[in-house]
C-alpha cells in the first residue's frame, strides 16, 4: 500500500468515443490519477466493485490498493481522513454512495472542509473532491434521491458544481481534482447513462462558469444537473407555442456566475429557475433573490421557481408527480401576465 512518485505523462488527445456520463467521470478520474500520483480515491465499494454506479470501474485494477481503496463504512470517517490526507499533500477524491449518505459527514464537511483554509489563514488548503451521486428520477427507494445542494451552497468555503452532460462531467471533474479548493461534486444520477461522443481529454468551459446552452429571447430557464435536460425539452416544446426559451446551465452552483446568468435575464426580462429539491429554502431562492436584486428594473415579471414540492422526496411510484416536467414548466410560465 504505497504511493509511487511517478512523473506525470501528458495525455494525448484520443479518438472520439461514445461515453455515458458515468464513463466520462470514470475517465476523468483515471486520467487525473495517471497525471498526478498524489490523487487517491477511496470510499464505500469504490474498489473491486467499481462503485454502485460503476464510476470507479477498473481503477482498482489499474492503480491498486495504495491509490484506490474500499474504506470502512463510515462517511464522517471518509471525509475526515480525506482532510488529513489533503493536509499531507495528497488530492483525495472520495465518494458518498448516495446523497442522503453524505449527511453523516456533515460536520466534517461544514466545520472542517469548508473552514480549514480560512482558519489557518491559507496555510492549510484542502484540495479534495467529494463526489456525491445526487438527486432522483431513478426510481430509488427512500434516501436514494435527495437533492442536498442547498446545504452545501449555504456553506461559505465550499465550491459546489454539478455537470449535466458527459463532456462537462469529464472536464469539470478534472478541474475539480486540480483545484486547490475543496469541491462538492454533485453527479446527477438520472444522467449517469446519458451519452455523448467525446475526444478525451475534453475541456469545456471553466468549472466556475454558467453556459447558455440554447439561445432564446422570451424567457430564461435556469437549470443545473438533472433539470437541464428538462429545461431543454421544455424549450423544444415551447417552439410550437411560439415561445423562445433561452436555457442556462449553471454548472457552478457556488460560486454563482452572476455575469452570464444576469446577462441572459436582462436580455429576456423573464426567468424561471428549476430544481428537483423542495422549493422552500432551496437553492432556487438564492438564484431568484440575487438575480432580482441585481436586475430588478430589467424584470418584466417575478422570477419563478419551478421545483419539487415542499415535502420529502417521494417513493418511486410517486416521483413523477413531484418532479418538474416540461408541461408543468410551460404551465407555470403561462401564469405570468404576458403583455
Amino acid at each position, binding site marked *: 500500500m504505497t504511493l509511487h512518485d511517478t512523473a506525470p505523462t501528458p495525455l494525448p488527445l484520443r479518438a472520439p468515443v461514445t461515453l455515458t456520463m458515468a464513463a466520462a467521470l470514470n475517465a476523468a478520474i483515471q486520467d487525473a490519477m495517471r497525471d498526478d500520483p498524489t490523487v487517491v480515491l477511496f470510499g464505500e*465499494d469504490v474498489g473491486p466493485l467499481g462503485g*454502485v454506479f460503476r464510476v470507479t470501474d477498473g481503477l482498482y485494477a489499474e492503480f491498486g490498493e495504495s491509490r484506490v481503496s474500499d474504506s470502512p*463504512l*463510515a462517511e464522517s470517517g471518509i471525509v475526515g481522513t480525506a482532510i488529513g490526507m489533503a493536509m499531507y499533500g495528497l488530492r483525495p477524491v472520495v465518494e458518498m454512495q448516495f446523497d442522503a449518505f453524505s449527511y453523516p459527514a456533515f460536520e466534517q464537511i461544514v466545520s472542517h472542509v469548508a473552514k480549514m483554509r480560512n482558519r489557518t489563514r491559507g496555510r492549510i488548503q484542502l484540495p479534495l473532491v467529494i463526489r456525491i451521486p445526487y438527486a432522483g428520477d431513478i426510481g430509488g427507494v427512500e*434516501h436514494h434521491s435527495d437533492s442536498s445542494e442547498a446545504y452545501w451552497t449555504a456553506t461559505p468555503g465550499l465550491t459546489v458544481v454539478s455537470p449535466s452532460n458527459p463532456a462537462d462531467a469529464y472536464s469539470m471533474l478534472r478541474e475539480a481534482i486540480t483545484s486547490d479548493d475543496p469541491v462538492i461534486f454533485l453527479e446527477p444520477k438520472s444522467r449517469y447513462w446519458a451519452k455523448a461522443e467525446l475526444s478525451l481529454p475534453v475541456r469545456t468551459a471553466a468549472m466556475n462558469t454558467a453556459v447558455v446552452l440554447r439561445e432564446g429571447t422570451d424567457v430564461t430557464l435556469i437549470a443545473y444537473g438533472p433539470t437541464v435536460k428538462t429545461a431543454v425539452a421544455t424549450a423544444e416544446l415551447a417552439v410550437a407555442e411560439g415561445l423562445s426559451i433561452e436555457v442556462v446551465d449553471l454548472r457552478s452552483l457556488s460560486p454563482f456566475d452572476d455575469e452570464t446568468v444576469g446577462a441572459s435575464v436582462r436580455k429576456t426580462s423573464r426567468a424561471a429557475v428549476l430544481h428537483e429539491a423542495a422549493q422552500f429554502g432551496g437553492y432556487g431562492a438564492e438564484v431568484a433573490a440575487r438575480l432580482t436584486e441585481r436586475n430588478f428594473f430589467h424584470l418584466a415579471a417575478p422570477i419563478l421557481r419551478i421545483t419539487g414540492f415542499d415535502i420529502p422526496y417521494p417513493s418511486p411510484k410517486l416521483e413523477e*408527480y413531484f418532479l418538474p416536467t416540461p408541461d408543468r414548466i410551460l404551465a407555470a410560465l403561462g401564469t405570468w401576465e404576458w403583455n
Partner: protein
Amino acid sequence: MPHHCVMSLNVESLVESPLAAPRPLRLIDDTGRAANPDEAGGLVLPDPATLLSLYRRMVVARRFDVQVTALTRQGRLATYPSALGQEACEIAAVAALGPEDWLFPTYRDSMALLTRGVPAEHILASFRGDWHSGYDQNAHRIAPQATPLATQALHAVGLATASKLKRDATVALTLLGDGATSEGDAHEAFNFAAVWQAPVVFVVQNNQFAISVPLDKQMRCRTIADKAIGYGMPGYFVDGNDVAAMYAVTSTAVQNARAGQGPTLIEGLTYRMEAHTNSDDPSRYRDAGDLEIWRRRDPITRLDTYLGEIGALSDAERADIRAEAEDLAADTRECMTRSAPVDPLELFEHVYATPRAALAEQRAFLAVELAEHAAASVAADTAESSTAQSGGTR
C-alpha cells in the same frame, strides 16, 4: 533532548493475550449434530417443539425471500435486499421477542417482519415503490426498515430507555449489519445503551460483506462481539447459522434486558448467499467457491437433519410446512402482480401534524394538474378510440 529515545519496551497489549481465541457459540453444528458441550458455552438447547417452530418459520421465510427475489428479477419490485442464508438470525431475533417488544430492522430484514406477522404486501409496498414504509408500525411494534445504516440502533436505545423510564417491560431489539457497526451511530448506540442500561438487544448479522466490502476491510478486531468490551456490556459471538444457539442467546439477552440487566451485543456469524440487492454483481468481488462452503453450513438443512434424527420432524410435517410456504409464495406472487393504486395527493398528507398553508396550496395545484391531465387523456382516449374505430376496417 530525547525526541527519539529508543526504549525497548515490552508491555503486553491488552488486545492480544487475555481473551480466549474466538469460537462461535453453537448448539447444533454444520452437519446437524448436537455441538460439543464446550462449543455451547453453557447454552441450553431449546426443546424440540421450539426448534420445530423455528424450523417452520425459517422454511416459510426462505420461500418468501426466494419468491420476492424472483419477482424482483421480473421487475415487479424496484429493489429487494435478500437475506437468503441468514434465516437463523432473522427468525431467532423475532422469536425471542414478546408481543409488547419493539423490533428495529433494516432493509435486509423482511424475513423478520414476515415472521413477526406483517403481511407480505405490506412489507413489500416500500420495495415496490408505493410508500416509504408500508405496514402499521405501531400495530406490529416494528419501526420502519432503516436504510441509513446504524441510525435505527439509536432509536431502539431511545425507545428502550423510554420503556425503562415508564417502568414498562418493553424491550427493543435492533438488527444491524457488520458494515453498519463501522458507523459512528453504532458506537453511540452501544455506548448510550450501556451507560443508560437500556433494555435493548443488538443483533449484528455478520454476513461478512457490506455490499462488496469484506470484513477485513471493515474492522480489525477478532469478532464484532469483542466490541462489547469497550462499552462494558456483554457480547456474544454466535454461529449465526445455528438457529438454536441464536435463539438461546437472543432470548436470554431479551430476558436480561427485561429484568433490568441492560443491553447485550450479539454477533451472528453468517453469510449473505445472494447479491446485495438485485442491482449488485457479486462476481466482481467474491469467490463463488465461498458460496459452496456456506451452503454446507445452511441453517435450514442443518436443523432439518437434527430434527429428523431426533425424530421430531416427519416427512408429513415437512410436506405440511412446504405447503404453508408455497401458499405464502403464491399469495405473494398474486399480491405483487395485482396493481396497487397510489394517490399522488397523499404526498401532502403526512409531512406535518400541524396543517401548513403552503402544502395546502401545493396540494391544490397538483389536484388541478391531475384533473387537467385526466381530462386531457379522456379527450385523447376518445380521439384515439374513434381513430381506432374508423381504422377498424383497415
